[in-house]
């Protein structure tokens, strides 16, 4: 729990650093989350869909949401999700975790991902 809080503080600090020059656009990120929303919920306690619920994903070990059937690849990945990990995974899911089962080909644009993650981090608090 402490680890997660420090991750959020760190993420907030990173966002603050990025602010001013190239502030991530949370509103735009919310729009971009539509690409995820057909399968993922992100509210606390919401049901898993085709994909696992994303509440509290930052700082969580990959493959540990209750009652979600993960691919062996995801369970074996050993990832503890940082913002950088999420960025790499969303950019190219099969490159970051080969043989995982998320049917999503990736979000190649770095700014899109920054906005999406900014939204996710703000929504997951």
């Amino acid at each position, binding site marked *: 729990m402490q680890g997660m809080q420090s991750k959020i503080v760190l993420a907030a600090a990173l966002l603050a650093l990025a602010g001013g020059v190239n502030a991530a656009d949370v509103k735009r990120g919310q729009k971009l989350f*539509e*690409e*995820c*929303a*057909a*399968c993922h919920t992100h509210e606390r306690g919401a049901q*898993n*869909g*085709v994909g696992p619920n994303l509440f509290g994903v930052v700082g969580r070990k990959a493959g540990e949401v209750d009652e979600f*059937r993960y*691919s062996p690849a995801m369970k074996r990945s050993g990832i503890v999700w940082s913002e950088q990990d999420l960025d790499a995974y969303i950019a190219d899911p099969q490159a970051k975790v080969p043989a995982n*089962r998320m*049917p*999503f*080909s990736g979000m190649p644009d770095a700014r899109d991902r920054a906005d999406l993650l900014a939204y996710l981090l703000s929504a997951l608090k």
Partner: protein
Amino acid sequence: MAKVLKEVDVVIVGLGWTGGILAKELSEAGLQVVALERGAMREAAKDYALPGIRDELRYVHRHDLMMNTARDTLTIRNNPSQEALPMRRLGSFLPGDVVGGSAVHWSGHTWRWTDMEFKARTLYEERYGKKYIPQDMSLQDWGITYAELEPYYDKFERTAAVSGKAGNLQGRIQPGGNPFEAPRSRDYPLPPLTSILASELFADAARNNGYHPFPRPSANASHAYTNPDGSKFGQCQYCGYCQRFGCEANAKGSPHMTVIPIAMAKPNFELRTNAWVTRVIKDSSGKRVTGVAYTNILNGEEFEQPANMVLLTAYAINNVHLMLLSGIGKPYDPVSQTGVIGKNYCYQTGAGATLFFEGRNFNPFMSSGGSNISMDDFNTNWDFDRAPHGFIGGYTIGGGFNTALPIGHRPVPRGTPQWGTAWKEATSKWYQTAMNIGASGSVMPNRYNCYDLDPTYRNAFGQPLMRMTFDYKDNEHKMGRHAAERINAIAKSMNPTHLNEASARTEPWTVVPYQSTHNTGGTIMGSNPRESAVNKYLQSWDCHNLFVVGANVFAHNCSYNPTGPVGALAYWTADAIKKKYLKTPGPLVSA
């Protein structure tokens, strides 16, 4: 002894697109609605997720989402002189058998049928004279117009996340779309899907031959999308597992992830699965229905569900079967050409070529349900003069792939041995190099193509099986030959290394290989009870509180896939019930 349940406002028989749409619309209108579905509950998150969903053996060969022929099937014959025999295994068509129905395993092709169909007899008589229509072709107008249906097509396209490109916006022809389509009030909710190499090559060739190719409209979301009801769609991943599978990315418009969950969230809606409806119950006057009888197929318990209104929204064939089993409406007799229930059963025809290009890599495993490019030059193009060719109707031509499965899709040049070393060498050599060009053609009604109850064979509930009598007639042979010639001409203009030429289907129709799940007619709509089973609102002419919704109301079959008008008509019927019928229950059209 059947247990009689508490009366409800509406009972819905079958929960696919039509049942789902009506369940949502009528439960939102405040009615007490019960839906009875013969299949089991299936949900995307549990049942259509990776990796289980990509199982060709389970879904293609063992028909996991489809009707179980050990419980109920049809008997089949080509003409009345033959003895019909039961179809023991699914083949030519694949009715669904789960919550969501056939709309779980469809591809998503969503077309707008136009007045060229709805006014077919009038238009052909005006242009070619009465004698052009063969004596035994029971062609008739549908009693509805494109203008009436247009807002409902639009509504369905938005519900189902149809990706496409308008060709005619309010009468203005749009570059890149289908110039032969009827005017649309607005564009599709989503832009067309990304085209694949095979469809691009076909589009170039079609254009070079003077035709008008356009992206096929399909309920595969080209982008993430939230529909007007708030249902969320993911983006199509071009995974290639569309037809016969549930969608792993929630990108294919299906009732189980749109209208059905909305109805299920209402306290006045109840779904009962594994509930097999055996008949609709009439009152003593015969002018009203009072509910349905059904069996819980898990334990054999029998029930009667009384209802103020009955909606038959099962698969097209089953809707007709229930009408015959319940004795509602006069059964059709092909000899005297009297009666209406079972009349004008139609199917579709087609022709296909396979082109092989040595050195090309088509990556056939990568496609969406709608990544084909189509052309309507011999279909909705009324300027195409049918007279020199002597047929009625038309066909679309399409190029590309739809669900070219890694195991099942094995294109090889004709003449290759069907097994052994030579086959293995050929399949490995040609797999990446082959693409298809195919035609889907209309089938016009014929007095002898019809349904009735089989005199011999019975289902697991002791009821007579549905008997289907069907064959292609001269009209379809002529059109098939025309289609095959045009396909081969386009294919040859592309200079393939090798060509498996298209040919017309002129042999008797057989139920064995898969062809298309586009069975139409049997309880057709029309303007009078002498010629049709239901009026333009799909309300039974015989019992005013019975509506029969599905492709079973089509007066004939065109070249297009049926789901566009099936969905639009469901919304149209829902509106007629809400705005007219509930205010003054009774016949909505006077006979």
